[in-house]
Every structure is written in structure tokens, then in C-alpha cells.
């Protein structure tokens, strides 16, 4: 089943929607040379057609509302509907960012209290809520670390990133003007401390780490790593993609991290929106506080205000104060869960991952020893003899009504299948998922041709991505 493009359904003769007329007439006229010459080819559709078009498109999607998303490092958990209602309150959605502080006291208090809660959860001194997404938060933190070193008269040019890191880590480091140095993972899936020692020097500005790492393993030598990094004067950066393993269990700040980014769209249940908007707050220890983006939210005598007077700030990382609507959602979630609920959420997430991991023992390879934290990485390498790849496993899951795990990441595991079940999937769902994976493994052995032809019952089959990239068609054209 496919749906035509809105442009293909457009009819030139359709009248425009009824809109207000000016009701006043000014003496001025827009000069001709400023006017548009060619009308943009926007579609002309009636409202009933528009609504049906988008409803049909919606029906072509998998989503967390209907399907289980075992997407490793993405933390696809249930998005509470109360959060959506809260963000739509007129008292939030109807605020201009340039209203006087005394007319937005509730909004500023919400931001202040969210900052306090997040700081407690991750163990830092202050947090900026400005970054719009995780990668944006990474870059913001690196800019602060860069400003910190410069303020001490040090010109540090390198950032160390493990070979298991998310691609955003090296990209964010490069965007901040750093040279990226890669550190190896050892046989146990953790950072190779010997290799790290060899790569640390006074040229290094920071080590970026995810903990638990992208294999879902806790970096158990983290306290030694922190000491080594700090001994060279470098800072330790925490990629918060995997924080869902740790709420109420262990805090990055207590592990020795100096800067921490959080993905509110992962750990704190704000919806992914088909690829955003998210929010990527960054928490820092005291030494980095002067460099926070401005404005910050301050409380004086019970009154809240935006503080722009921060002379050592790195400046702004986006317009206004961040994705405020997402902040409202995360705040609502934290209120509802409380410290006890967040702790149980992380424990349930760890339990679910280990349960699925154990259930797949003997079906897929799991190259690193457990227990794991909130996710684990399996490998489809054992199916290679039948010509089956991780991609085929992914497509087989789509055919069986599950979204696919993250595949081919982390790069250090061949044919990687990265599974993160989260705390909001019932045992029945986890069991059904395991059954589906076992069925796929059996199909791979008995009829690999059939598996490679899946999915068969989705709106489209496997798409020709090679020709899409070779001859890119990125838009509909009027002719």
C-alpha cells in the first residue's frame, strides 16, 4: 500500500481556505521589485483530503504506541500521555520568550526545579537546559571544556573517544575543532586502560565515555580511568545515552565525570517524534559552571530570573532557552515517578535486558560476558554460514510486528544486533520478542532465501538504497 504525494493530489482549480481579510487598508504598497515572481508550487488540497492523507501516512508507520522498539542506545520507552497534555497547557504553550520575567515565573520555576532534579539524578552542580538534542549537548559540553582549558592558558587539541562510541562523539569533537584520538576496547568490551594510558597527554582536553558503554557493559574500572584522566588535567565527559540503566543506582558525577549530557527523549520519556524534537541538557561540576551557556535561571528570594550577566559563558548554543515544551514533559514525568519510581524504572530496565539476553543464549552469539546493564549486543555472525546478516534479522523482526534492534553498531562487534528492551515492556511482550527472534534464527537455518525476502507484508519491501544515493531524488518536481 502506498499513498500519493500531497503534490500529486493537488488540483489547481481548488479555492484557497477561507482566511480573514485585512479589514483595513493602508496607504502603502509593497514595491514590485520585492514581490515574488513565481508562485511556490505548494499543494492545493481541501481539509478532508489533507486529514485523510496524513492519517494514511500515519498508518504506514511503526511506533512505540503500537510496536515494541528494542532499539539499542535509543531507549524507546512509553511516552506518558499526561506529559503531552501538560505541554499543551496554554500557560506554557502560549508564552512569548521575550515576556518580562515577572510574567513567566511559573515557566522559570519549572526550569529551575527541573535543573535541580536532573542535577540530583546525575550528581552535578549546575545544568543548562538549552541544547536541543544529545549531539547538541555533547558539542555544548566540549565547548565548555575548551573554554575552561583556554581560561587556564592551555591549548589542548585532542579529544579521546572509544572505538565503541556513538558516531556523534567524534563528530561533536571535530565540530569543536578537536582532533579525535580513538582508544581501543579490550577483550572484555571495556576501555583498554593500557591503550588509554598511552594516548593520554597534556594535549588531551577530554575523554568522552558512555557508561554503561554501547555494549551495555558497566566500565567497572571507571574510578581508575577518572583518576588517570584528571591526572593529566583533562576532563571526563559522560554521554548520557545510556543513563536509563543508572537512575537511583549510580551517578555519573560520583564516578568522576565533569560534564554529563542527558537525552530527555530517551531516559525522561519525551517522545521521539519520528526524529525529534528532543532535548539534551548538560550538567557540569563547579569548575565548568562559569562557562555554561547563557542565560541561566536563578532564584533570588523566591523570585526567578534569567541571568545574562555571565562574562565567562561560552554564549548561546541555540535561540531562547531550549526546547521548553520538552522540558515540561520531562518535569511532569519526574514528578509522577519520584525518586523511588525512577530507581525502580532503571532496575526494571536492567532486569529486562538481562532476561532477554539470557533467553537468546544459544540462538544468537553474545560475544561479551554478562551480566549486562540496560542493553546488550548480540551478533548474527553465527548465521553467516547460511548467508544471513544482521540486516536480515532486523527485517525478519519487522515482518513479525516488532521494530528492529539497532544493527551494525557498535562497530567493534561484527553483525551487531543491539537490544534495549526498557522497563515499559511487559514480560509477555519480551517473551513474544524472544520467540520471534528464535523463529528467525530457525528460518535462517532452514530457508535463508525466504528470510532475505522479508518483509513481505509491510507497505513496501526492501528498498533500493544504493540507487537512492547514487541518483538522489530529494523532492517532488512540478514538471
Amino acid at each position, binding site marked *: 500500500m502506498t499513498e500519493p*504525494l500531497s*503534490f500529486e493530489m493537488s488540483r489547481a482549480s481548488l479555492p*484557497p481556505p477561507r*482566511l480573514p*481579510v485585512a479589514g483595513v487598508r493602508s*496607504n502603502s504598497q509593497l514595491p514590485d521589485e520585492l514581490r515574488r515572481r513565481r508562485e*511556490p*508550487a*505548494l499543494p*492545493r488540497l481541501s481539509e478532508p483530503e*489533507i486529514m485523510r492523507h496524513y*492519517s494514511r*501516512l500515519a498508518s504506514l*508507520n511503526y511506533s512505540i504506541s503500537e510496536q515494541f522498539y528494542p532499539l539499542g542506545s535509543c531507549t524507546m520507552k512509553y511516552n506518558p500521555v*499526561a506529559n503531552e497534555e501538560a505541554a499543551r497547557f496554554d*500557560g506554557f504553550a*502560549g508564552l*512569548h*520568550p*521575550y515576556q*518580562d520575567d515577572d*510574567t513567566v515565573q*511559573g515557566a522559570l520555576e*519549572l526550569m529551575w526545579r527541573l535543573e535541580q532534579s536532573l542535577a*540530583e539524578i546525575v550528581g552535578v552542580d549546575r545544568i543548562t537546559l538549552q541544547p*536541543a538534542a544529545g*549531539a547538541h549537548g555533547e558539542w555544548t559540553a566540549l565547548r565548555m571544556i575548551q573554554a575552561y582549558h583556554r581560561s587556564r592558558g592551555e591549548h589542548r587539541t585532542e579529544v579521546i573517544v572509544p572505538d565503541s562510541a556513538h*558516531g556523534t562523539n567524534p563528530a*561533536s569533537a*571535530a565540530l*569543536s575543532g578537536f582532533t579525535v584520538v580513538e582508544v581501543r576496547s579490550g577483550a572484555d568490551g571495556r576501555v583498554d586502560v593500557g591503550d588509554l594510558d598511552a594516548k593520554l597527554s597534556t594535549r588531551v582536553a577530554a575523554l568522552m565515555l558512555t557508561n554503561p558503554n554501547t555494549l551495555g557493559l558497566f566500565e567497572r574500572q571507571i574510578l581508575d580511568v577518572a583518576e588517570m584522566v584528571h591526572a593529566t588535567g583533562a576532563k571526563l565527559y559522560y554521554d548520557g545515552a545510556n543513563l536509563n540503566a543508572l537512575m537511583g543506582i549510580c551517578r555519573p558525577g560520583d*564516578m568522576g565525570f565533569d560534564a554529563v549530557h542527558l537525552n530527555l*527523549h530517551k531516559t525522561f520519556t519525551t*517522545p521521539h*517524534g*519520528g526524529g525529534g524534537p528532543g532535548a539534551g541538557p548538560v550538567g557540569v561540576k563547579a569548575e565548568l559552571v562559569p562557562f555554561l551557556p547563557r542565560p541561566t535561571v536563578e532564584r533570588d528570594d523566591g523570585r526567578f530570573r534569567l541571568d545574562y550577566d555571565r562574562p565567562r559563558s*561560552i*554564549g*548561546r548554543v*541555540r*535561540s*531562547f532557552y*531550549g526546547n*521548553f515544551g520538552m522540558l515540561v514533559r520531562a518535569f511532569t514525568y519526574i*514528578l509522577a515517578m*519520584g*525518586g523511588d519510581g525512577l*530507581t*525502580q524504572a532503571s532496575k*526494571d530496565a536492567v*532486569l529486562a535486558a538481562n532476561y532477554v539476553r539470557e*533467553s537468546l543464549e544459544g540462538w544468537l552469539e553474545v560475544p561479551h560476558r554478562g*551480566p549486562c546493564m540496560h542493553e546488550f549486543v548480540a551478533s548474527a555472525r553465527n548465521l553467516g554460514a547460511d548467508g544471513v546478516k544482521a540486516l536480515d534479522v532486523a527485517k525478519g523482526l519487522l515482518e513479525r510486528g516488532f521494530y528492529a534492534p539497532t544493527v551494525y553498531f557498535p562497530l567493534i562487534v561484527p553483525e551487531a544486533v543491539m537490544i534495549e528492551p526498557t522497563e*515499559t515492556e511487559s514480560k509477555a511482550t519480551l517473551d513474544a520478542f524472544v520467540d520471534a527472534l528464535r523463529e528467525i534464527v530457525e528460518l535462517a537455518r532452514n530457508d535463508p532465501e525466504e528470510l532475505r525476502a522479508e518483509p513481505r507484508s*509491510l507497505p513496501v519491501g526492501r528498498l533500493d*538504497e544504493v540507487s*537512492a544515493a547514487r541518483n*538522489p531524488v*530529494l*523532492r517532488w518536481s512540478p514538471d
Partner: protein
Amino acid sequence: MPYLVHAADDREQMLDALGVRSVDDLLVDIPASIRTHELDLPEGLSEQETMRCVRELAGRNRVFEDRLWFRGGGVYRRFIPAAVAAVTSKPEFYTAYTPYQPEASQGTLQAIFEFQTLIAELTGMDVANASLYDGATALAEAAMMAVVDTGRQKVVVAGHLHPEYVEVLRCFADGRGFDVRVGVEHVATDTAAVLFQQPNFLGLFEDASGLTELAHRSGALSVATVDPISLGLIAPPGEYDADIAVGEGQQLGLPPSFGGPHVGFIACRRDLMRRLPGRLVGSTVDASGRRGFVLTLTAREQHIRRAKATSNICTNHSLCALAASVYLTYMGPEGLRQIADVSYQRAHVLAEQLSAIPGVELAFPDRQFLNEFPVRMFHVEQSLTRLRDAGILGGLPVGRWYPELDGVVVFCCTEVNDPDAIQTLVGVLSESGVAAQVPTTSGRSSEGGQGGQG
């Protein structure tokens, strides 16, 4: 506890399967010295209590009636058709992930393909990407594209470009290691890009063609920051040969929401396509020839190219882009033109009436504007307070960003400001007489404006 799904016996069965007694037995890799004992946070609340608490915070904000908003500066009140929220609140859209698995994501992918087309058409450019965070980061990304494309290390900001956008640009430039200069006098043969806003932050039209020619004469790229509603009426970047067009899409169906989430867009000439940051959706076919859409040209992106990616962006603002698509599809070309035209007419009537008040005058009477315009007035602070007391969100004082524009207030009109609302605003300002009173100390003054940003 809310949102958790297990009964106690579910947990026990899973623990049994693992052969452990508690989850703590699974946390053996965490050093005991750093285990958290208890988070210092309040206990969880029922939904009823949670929502009462959140609603109470919402109630401590002042919401101005939309028809009485006369403030813009990057965030605007516009009419939002009900269709927009009806579509974006479909869980199949808002709870989906980035469409990595195309067979299970055709709805999101096709919606993005339509968004890319809508933005390309609107800006008159060849191609657009799937969205960026906001207008400010879109500008910074465009500047970085120009730096890479030209191999030059300096960009020039011309005219009054949104001061927060420039501040964000500086933050990116400072990390990446290129210079930002303000003023066209800096344009030279080492300039990577000339960046301007049309209409500019004060609402005034820049000479977009002239600035583009200036850029091209120096071998630099021309980067236009544009207002998407304005493009229903005025010349788009493609018609004056700009190389990259960026902007903020909030006006296309998104509520003000204290500044976000909104949506940045970026569009360019076809030969710059591979330098674009972020996601791109392309059209292709499956084995049986059915059309489908996929994320494409991913070799530019961080998850493939890592340190050599064109940008670090991963999550963008897909759902906001969907809102913009629904809005533009609802309006169509004539609807969009009418919205822009009504805004133009009303803003010009407001400008005529405001400048007839003694003590209020247009700050740049010889410059053309669209639907925002700067006026110079006495006693800015008292005037805005008087308006506020009357339930009106008055114009934006801009002296906090531009000392030479102390005493200048930018007023904005859109289709939500009906003629009665305009009369109300003008009535309050002229009856109060505050604007006309000659100040006792020194000339025109904003008395500091609000906030005071360095």
C-alpha cells in the same frame, strides 16, 4: 508506580530465569563506593496530583490574548488550523523513532520528503534537508557549509540579523575556528559567506539582491535567513540567487511555547547538496517497483563518517517539520500569500496610526518593511507597562542588543491582530500620553528595557 508494567511475580520469574535473587546481583560491575543509596527527590505522585502541580505552575504565567500580541522578534502568534495538532498528536507520528527502518517508517519518510519539497518550493532553492533545531543553529550550519565549500575562514554578517542567531553563530565559529565579522565593509576576497536576514530583525527589508551580488563578486556564498510566511508574498532567496536559505519555521503551525521546540530549515543549490548537514530523504523503489522513501546520502553523516561528518546532528525536529508541512498544505500558495498580505496591511495601518501619536515616530521612515517595524518613543518602559496593564503584549525594545537603538521598539502585526485589537493598542498608547511626555532627565530612553543581555 506509573508507567511500570511488571507485577511482583513477573519480576520474580525473570530473576528466576537468570538464577539471581535480586537486581542487585546484576549490578556487580558497579563499585560499591559509588552506589547511590537513595535519590534526594520527592516520592512519586498520582496523575491527579502531578497534573495539579504542573497546572499550578502554568497558572503562574501570564498568557496574553493572541489578538493582543504585538511582539515578534523571532517568535510570532499566528492562526494555527486545527488540522495541525490533529496530525501531530497522532501517536503513529509522535511516538515513532528516526526512520532507520524504511519499510516500517514510510509515513514519517514520505512526510519528510514532502517537507523537503515544500521548503525547496517556498525558498525557491533546489533542495532542502529534513529539518534542523531552530533558525539560529540553521544559520550556523549554513556558515559552516560555506567555510568548508570555499576553504575560507571568515564570514560576514550584514545588517540587523537576529542577535541571538549571531550569538549562536559565534559560539559555533569559536569552536570550529573561523571568524565572524559584522558589517558589509568586511566583505573581501577571504570571505566565505555574507549572512543577512530578509526582512531583518527590525522588520526592515535588506537589499538582498545587492548583498548577494556583493558576496558573489568576492567569491563568497550568499546566505539568506528568511521568514517563511513572508515568502508567500516576497521574493524568495532562489529568485535573487542566494546560495543557501535558512530560517525558523515556528510560524508554520507551532505555538510560541516560550521559545521551543520550533524548527530550523535549510535549503541550497543542488551543487551544495552533499555539504548539507543532517537527514535527507530520497525517493526510490522496492524489488517489485513500488515507490518508497529512504534516508539517503548518509555518507555525510556522523554515524557513518564520524569525525569527518558534515555536522554532528542526529536527532532533528521531525515532528515540528510535520506541523509545518500540514500548515503549508492547508494554506496552499494563495492562502499563504493572503496571510502575508493581511499581516502587511495591518502592520502598515498600525505604523501609520502609531506614528501619528505625538512623541512616537518611525525609527527608519525611509525603509520598507513587511509586518514588523521599529518605532522610536519616549518612556519605553512605562509605555509597555501601561500596555501590559491593559492586557496587551507590546512591541519588543531592542536597545538591549543595539545601544544605538535605545528607545526603539519593534512592533509586529499578523493576521491574529484584528482591526479592533489595533485600535485598542493605539488607544491605550495615545490616551495614556506617556509617550508624549518629555522626559525630565535625558532624551529618549528605554530605561534599560528588560533583561539586559550583554
